[in-house]
């Protein structure tokens, strides 16, 4: 909702303000990426915080534009940038040669060492780069750390979810070590007293801001702003407050100042919030109620996407079922091909084609619309088959009786066949709607923060997967149950002639 309002505003602004410099600077990130980059404040989950949030704000101020965040999954951020969903990406984008082919990279704004975290009690744990050989090492996919670990011959396990899960697996003994950038190791690894970390000897990595390929003007502006922020000390102050000022960054900035660092207040705040999970009762009475507005917003989006997609699926499904049953040969053939195609290919592939593929043909859909269209097109195939089953359940004698009375094909369908077919089609339709409700979580791929994504973000930033998992599960149940009830009532209505007894 917020996203669409932002977009609307952006459109309005673009239309009314001619000066491009005054348009907001939309920056992309993944709120599930976790602390200390961009994450939901565990103390106040309605707020997204992180050192990159503040960096974006500083950058916007320097450039005379208001910084506006937009969210998408981390591994899709550069594609979303290319599609035009944001102006820049600020989310730990690592400087690596091959990225230059798809995006423009700014000057690095941060440098850090890779840090290996292991269990203290694990005597055989690796502690050197060479020691990684054959060990189970967890990290993030497509990262510099993953590449280093792979090169060292480690058995690399990458995690799509969030950093918290990687350290959880280390704790549970499913991993022998975690190799990640120092800020992550600091915020997740250092919280656990049973972990220890090795801070040198694993290489370094730098972060840069990604700008759309060929957007040299913006790149120049971003670089100028970064340079300004570096020279006036804003960046160093920012990193110190977050407790991530590193000697690598000092070297990057040619900063030899020995001034006493600022207190890393943000890290202390984080540790206080998530270091020890409050009791379930306490979470239930204070924390979860505070998160309710976010879940409600996510649930509303889930519901809106699902209901819109189902409406499209029902309308299209009826057309397909009728076309297949009554249409001329070419139409029949088309309907069968449609059903087989959409039933036989993964929904995620279809959504990716609609959102990232169609722009190549000049059709760029709003994220909400893209989600609804992809889900609707996919479920239309299932609905068409439900309605076909319904239509075929009506005996052919019913149509002959109608024909003999002089009813037209359309009248027969409308007054005789459809009312009987509906009853047969309702139960599988209800099933499909509830499946759709759950499948709608896929739209998080196209920047929409629905219920599941809300859960992912919050669970990762509060390190609470179980409790919040139960919360999100109950939201899905609450969304689905009324529809199940409604469907049951409709079924009884359409089947009222089957109830025996005096009329």
């Amino acid at each position, binding site marked *: 909702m917020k996203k669409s309002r932002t977009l609307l505003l952006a459109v309005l602004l673009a239309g009314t303000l001619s000066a491009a410099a005054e348009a907001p600077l939309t920056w992309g990130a993944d709120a599930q990426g976790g602390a200390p980059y961009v994450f939901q404040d565990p103390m106040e989950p309605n707020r997204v915080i992180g050192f990159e949030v503040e960096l974006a704000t500083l950058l916007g101020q320097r450039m005379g534009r208001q910084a506006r965040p937009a969210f998408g999954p981390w591994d899709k951020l550069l594609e979303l940038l290319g599609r035009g969903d944001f102006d820049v990406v600020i989310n730990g984008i690592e400087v690596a040669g091959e990225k230059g082919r798809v995006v423009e990279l700014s000057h690095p704004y941060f440098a850090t060492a890779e840090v290996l975290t292991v269990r203290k009690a694990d005597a055989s744990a690796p502690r050197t780069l060479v020691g990684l050989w054959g060990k189970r090492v967890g990290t993030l996919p497509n990262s510099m750390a993953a590449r280093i670990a792979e090169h060292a011959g480690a058995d690399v396990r990458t995690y799509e979810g969030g950093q918290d899960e990687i350290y959880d697996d280390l704790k549970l003994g499913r991993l022998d070590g975690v190799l990640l950038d120092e800020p992550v190791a600091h915020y997740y690894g250092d919280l656990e007293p049973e972990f220890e970390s090795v801070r040198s000897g694993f290489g370094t990595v730098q972060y840069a801001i990604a700008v759309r390929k060929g957007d040299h003007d913006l790149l120049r502006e971003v670089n100028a702003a970064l340079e300004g922020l570096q020279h006036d000390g804003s960046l160093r102050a920012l990193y110190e407050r977050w407790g991530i000022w590193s000697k690598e960054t000092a070297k990057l900035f040619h900063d030899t100042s020995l001034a006493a660092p600022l207190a890393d207040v943000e890290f202390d705040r984080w540790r206080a919030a998530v270091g020890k999970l409050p009791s379930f009762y306490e979470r239930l009475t204070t924390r979860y109620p505070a998160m309710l507005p976010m879940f409600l917003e996510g649930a509303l989006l889930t519901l809106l996407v699902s209901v819109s997609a189902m409406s499209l699926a029902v309308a299209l499904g009826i057309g397909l079922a009728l076309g297949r049953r009554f249409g001329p040969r070419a139409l029949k053939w088309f309907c069968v091909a449609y059903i087989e195609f959409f039933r036989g290919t993964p929904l995620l592939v279809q959504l990716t084609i609609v959102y990232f593929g169609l722009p190549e043909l000049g059709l760029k859909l709003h994220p909400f619309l893209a989600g609804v269209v992809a889900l609707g097109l996919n479920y239309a195939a299932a609905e068409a088959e439900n309605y076909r089953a319904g239509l075929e359940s009506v*005996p052919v*004698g*019913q149509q*002959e*009786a*109608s*024909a*003999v*009375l*002089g*009813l037209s094909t359309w*009248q027969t369908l409308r*007054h*005789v066949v459809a*009312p*009987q077919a509906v009853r047969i089609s309702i139960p599988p339709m209800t099933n499909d709607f509830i499946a759709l409700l759950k499948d709608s979580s896929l739209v998080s791929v196209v920047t929409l923060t629905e219920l599941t994504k809300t859960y992912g973000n919050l669970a990762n930033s509060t390190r609470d997967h179980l409790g919040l998992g139960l919360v999100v599960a109950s939201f899905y149940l609450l969304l689905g149950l009324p529809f199940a009830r409604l469907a049951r009532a409709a079924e009884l209505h*359409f089947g*009222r*002639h*089957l109830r*025996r*007894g*005096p*009329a």
Partner: protein
Amino acid sequence: MTLVVKELVRHHEGNPQPTLAGMSFDLPAGTLTALLGPSGAGKSTMLRCIMGLEPFETGRIDIDGVIVRGTRESSREERKRAIADARKKLGLVFQSFELFPHLTALENCVLAPMRVKLETRAAAEKRARALLCQLGLEPRLDAFPEQLSGGQQQRVAIARALAMEPRVLLYDEPTSALDPSMKNEVLQSLKRIDASGVTQVVVTHDLQLARGVEHVCILDHGVVIESGSPEVVLKTPVHESTRALLNAWLQPDAA
């Protein structure tokens, strides 16, 4: 003559013997006729051909002196129009009744008059109510077909057909789906409607039912082999094959 069927021929796929081998008969207006024949005589096929539910190859059908349905020479559109015309003048009561299960008895009789003849609901309901009451269904107007006995369902089916005010009403095996004790009741219904002047044709293999009508045609192997009043045809048949048929029929009853 209200209904004239002339030289109707129809083959079914995979069967070298024609199902209808030039079947002809004619029915005077306002009579109650039984087309009597054993299974496989082509009774049902003939009914379906007359109603336009199945095509036929050669022959013709007249209703009130108008050829409502040509065959070979006619285009698809002409055929469709001819079938539609025929259905305006004909009614059919199916063997399994084919009532609309999701509609009440009254609604079953109102649907077609409202949608096809564009009558108002009030007018359509008035006539449907009258017909259903005439057939003794007054207390069951708002019952769904599932809630009615077989005999009641059949009377609703008759009322539904009559509501379209056909010139000719055809019945496909009206006694076969009912308990044998209902035969008399069926005959009573037929006679009650006969009094109102509608031409009725009952297709049946039920000898007992055939005895109660005004006119009988005996069908065998796709042709009419003998016709006349039941007293004459059933008691003193002229044709040898009719006699053989009647004997075969009577055997199981005798046993």
